[in-house]
């Protein structure tokens, strides 16, 4: 759901950029306080893996494809929504500037949708679901699905404000596609949590500790 440059009028892009910069500065503050020698390599390899897997578009029905976003995964594993904002901001800069995936003027909106919504829905969804289910994988799957789905609905609203899509038709088609793409997001998130929890149970204990 990377919005290209032409899809949003410039004055609206400025507003999205301002909102994005507020969250980026909060994410930098988080990084300053939290990225110790243990978490720094983890967030770096997570970001690299998220970039690589984002490049792999998986076909879904309706002549469409989708890919992982990964902010929910980063937020869940590192125990803060700002981890998702931090990772996705840097990933989206590289994607936009080097690979023309997502616009430059629309990057603020993309950071809000994928980084901020992905990170916050992913993290708070996960912690809430952990209280109810006490199941890491189910909680991760559902939270990551919801992060993808809600980000897509917000994107549809932005498209409606931009005059690019009619609101209801946009919500229906974006919602339909991303309800399915979210299953990929949830599945890959659950598998990645499993791999990390198996290799480094100590890392997951810190972030899963929020359920205690």
């Amino acid at each position, binding site marked *: *759901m*990377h*919005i290209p*440059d*032409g*899809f*949003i*009028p*410039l004055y609206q892009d400025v507003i999205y950029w301002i909102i994005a910069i507020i969250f980026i500065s909060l994410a930098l503050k988080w*990084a*300053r*306080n*939290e990225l*110790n020698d243990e978490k*720094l*390599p*983890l967030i*770096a*390899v*997570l970001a*690299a*893996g*998220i*970039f*690589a*897997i984002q*490049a*792999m*578009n*998986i*076909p879904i029905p*309706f*002549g*469409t*494809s989708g890919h992982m976003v990964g902010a929910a995964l980063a937020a869940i594993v590192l125990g803060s929504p700002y981890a998702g904002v931090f990772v996705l901001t*840097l*990933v989206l*800069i*590289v994607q*936009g*500037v*080097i*690979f*023309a*995936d997502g*616009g*430059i*003027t629309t990057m603020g909106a993309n950071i809000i949708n994928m980084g901020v919504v992905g990170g916050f829905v992913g993290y708070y969804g996960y912690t809430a679901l952990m209280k109810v289910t006490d199941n890491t994988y189910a909680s991760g799957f559902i939270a990551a699905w919801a992060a993808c789905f809600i980000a897509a609905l917000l994107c*549809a609203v932005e498209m409606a404000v*931009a*005059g*690019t*899509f009619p609101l209801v038709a946009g919500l229906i*088609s974006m919602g*339909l*596609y*991303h309800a399915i*793409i979210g299953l990929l997001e949830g599945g890959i998130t659950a598998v990645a949590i499993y791999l990390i929890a198996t*290799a*480094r149970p100590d890392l997951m204990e810190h972030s899963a500790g929020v359920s205690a």
Partner: protein
Amino acid sequence: MEQNQFVIAAIILALVIAVLAPFLASGNPDGLESAFFSMYGAKTVTGADLDEGQAGLAEEQVVETTGNTFEFEAPMPDYSIPGMDKAGEVTAIVAGTVLVLGLVWGAGRLIARPEQ
């Protein structure tokens, strides 16, 4: 697993995904593009067929609607190297993966002051 082992294993996994991605990735429009094309008559919401000509017109039409004519020449557009085939795509995605790894690690190293 030790920290170094874990980091190396994760980097190798990321690079394996990066190398495989161009061979496995679908060329279908993504969710936003597909929604966009269906709004502008280049496909139906649930249909599989894309009208390439109409898709091109849609891209011109949306720029007229929003007035955002900003254009930017990215060095490796759509994860490819102009003039190169699959090898260029592999190179592009591997380069991007290494760049993101270095950028996040470097930015984190510069910013982080966890002791204070």
